[in-house]
């Protein structure tokens, strides 16, 4: 697992369409945002998909499978400008940290940290996400 540090995702582009943003916002219980603004919570799945991977592929990369195998430790999300519908953003990132740890109860897990940068088509920074997952062994 420690060898995953430095692993780079393929990278790529992704656009958030109106229907997706509508459903996403509706799931949160908030009325739709004005002016084609994307709900801020899109910074979970849009970077993962935009960088050319998926939650399933990240599970496979981290060698976890099944209920109870994954937990969330935390997120650090920086917003440099709001995300908007129908803009083709650029995504680049990779695995920045893996650490094997043991809980007080003696259960082993890997702290798995990846970071992805979002930018506009003309390379202006839009956001940076750093996600900390707990992969249980």
């Amino acid at each position, binding site marked *: 697992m420690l060898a995953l540090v430095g692993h780079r995702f393929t990278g790529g582009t992704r656009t958030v369409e109106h229907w*997706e943003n509508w*459903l*996403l916002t*509706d*799931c*949160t*219980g*908030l009325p739709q*945002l*004005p*002016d084609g*603004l994307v*709900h*801020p*919570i899109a910074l*979970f*799945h849009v970077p993962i*998909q935009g960088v050319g991977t*998926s*939650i*399933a592929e990240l*599970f496979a990369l981290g060698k976890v499978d*099944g*209920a*109870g195998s*994954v*937990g*969330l*430790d*935390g*997120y*650090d*999300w*920086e*917003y440099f400008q*709001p995300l908007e519908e129908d803009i083709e953003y650029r995504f680049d990132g990779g695995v920045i940290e893996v650490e094997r740890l043991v809980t007080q109860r003696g259960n082993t897990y890997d702290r798995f940290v990846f970071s992805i940068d979002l930018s506009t088509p003309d390379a202006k920074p839009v956001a940076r996400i750093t996600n900390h997952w707990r992969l249980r062994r």
Partner: protein
Amino acid sequence: MIEPATTIPAWSMPDVDPARMKTMAAILRDPYPVHWDRDSVAGLGRGHRVINQGPLNLSYITNMLIQWQGPRCIRRLQVSFADPVLDHESITATGTVTSIETVDGERRATCDVRLERNGESVVTGTAVIALTAEDD
């Protein structure tokens, strides 16, 4: 005037809906069954109740912030997840301003934020929020 110790108006989700978790799983392309298959969670000691996605838990905090300072206000979110939220639970997002800074000419509030279930914190963290002139 917003200043340190200002309380952010709370935002509540009175009934976490498992149907929304299913829609969310499809949007996220999330194969983790604990969000949509009650049988998968039976062995986790939490009964037959599916687990809300972490991003949805965080969304209740972002909704509170948007309700307070508008849809373009969020500059940074740093959060930790303490305990899962289960279907049909009632939860509330709360927050308090801890400091005020001016960055690049923009007045910003750093805030402690929490998602609470019966007074217990299930998500905690810090948010940096741009204060809009009309509300400040």
